[in-house]
């Protein structure tokens, strides 16, 4: 690792100032992706601004609209233990391993937007709102592609607001070595329709599967998926773990499993 300064502010305003004071600062969430990246010298910021000491960014509560509001520096372990949105807690409980979940944060995961990460599927599948120090961004406008988001330079995810669906589930087909999602599908049934978000499969990152959403909005059953064609393999990832066609098939299978298990 190249060396850098590390700052540990206790307020969001101080973190924003520390970010803007430097020409090359980067926010540090739990570091479970960023630290390995720094070790490989794939990044060399001059300053890291740690979010871990900002109390106003840690914790889980419900707002007046009934949404689950999760501070950007809240760990996966805390979300897994919460349980008031079972589909989301179930997803958080299967990210990485226990020690990783004790450090990794929801804000860090969403800011990184790894194409095989779990949280982007939950945020997009729930129609969540990403709250930053500057603005609120709808999940539909937030994810821009692999490792790309609507975040601007120095912008920090302070909170994520999740509408809680009637039923939901995240079905994850793990790549056996990394335990990342080879394909993961988050299904959420709301009173006004169903959302289906797919991670791990596409070269453009997390995305919605609209044909499945329409079918499930008409009839919420695994059978509705069984009679659909698998999505097109165009633009899906082909690598040594599987072809695009294999991933397309998995999208359909995992969507069916998510619907069958939704509670």
């Amino acid at each position, binding site marked *: *690792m*190249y*060396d*850098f*300064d*590390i700052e*540990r502010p206790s307020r969001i305003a101080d973190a924003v100032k520390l970010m803007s004071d430097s020409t090359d600062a980067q926010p540090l969430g739990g*570091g*479970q992706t960023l*630290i*390995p990246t*720094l*070790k490989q010298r794939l990044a060399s910021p001059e300053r*890291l601004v*740690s979010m*871990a000491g900002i109390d106003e960014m840690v914790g889980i509560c419900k707002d007046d609209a009934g949404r689950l509001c999760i501070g950007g520096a809240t760990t996966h*372990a805390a979300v897994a233990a919460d349980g008031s949105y079972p589909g989301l807690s179930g997803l958080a409980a299967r990210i*990485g*391993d*226990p*020690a*990783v979940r*004790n*450090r990794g944060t929801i804000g860090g995961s969403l800011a990184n937007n790894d194409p095989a990460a779990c949280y982007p599927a939950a945020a997009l599948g729930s129609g969540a709102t990403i709250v930053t120090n500057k603005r609120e961004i709808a999940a539909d406008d937030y994810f821009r592609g692999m490792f790309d988001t609507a975040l601007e330079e120095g912008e920090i995810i302070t909170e994520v607001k999740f509408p809680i669906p009637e039923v939901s589930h995240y079905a994850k087909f793990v790549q056996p070595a990394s*335990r990342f999602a080879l394909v993961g599908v988050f299904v959420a049934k709301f009173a006004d329709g169903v959302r289906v978000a797919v991670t791990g499969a596409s070269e453009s990152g997390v995305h919605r599967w609209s044909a499945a959403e329409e079918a499930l909005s008409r009839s919420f059953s695994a059978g509705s998926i069984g009679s659909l064609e698998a999505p097109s393999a165009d633009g899906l990832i082909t690598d040594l773990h599987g072809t695009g066609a294999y991933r397309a098939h998995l999208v359909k299978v995992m969507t069916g499993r998510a619907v069958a298990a939704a509670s």
Partner: protein
Amino acid sequence: MTKVTMTVNGKTVSKEVEGRTLLSAMLREQLNLTGTHIGCDTSQCGACVVHVNGEAVKSCTMFAAEADGAEVKTIEGMANADGSLSTIQAAFQEHHGLQCGFCTPGMVMSAAALLKDNPKPSEAEVREYLEGNLCRCTGYHNIVKAIMAASGQDVPAVAAE
């Protein structure tokens, strides 16, 4: 350089560290607590697991500066006050839960974190919890046995795979 102060195995320590100094490096190189092992250095293997404020973390994937003010516990802090092996350590010895021993510090720290939250885990829960701790010798079976025994459960009931 930044000055960090933390409690390690009950003792207050202060050290000057660089921003990039990992907690694992500080423990091993500045405090000479070499029981915390570096296996993969990529947060896969879990040999470096320690407790920070009571929670299991991979010390190779946390900066020392982030542990400022924290309570840290390493394998050196696991024995009983009289120096005898703790229940978990004794169970690893009794059930041959180690061969080369490289992964053992991380295994013991993860096991302690598991049993703190879940004192009577099922065999499946033990195996699931150890997802981030790799052992290349034992095939895990005797590690699982040791943790089941340390939790006061019947070891012969653990099925062989």
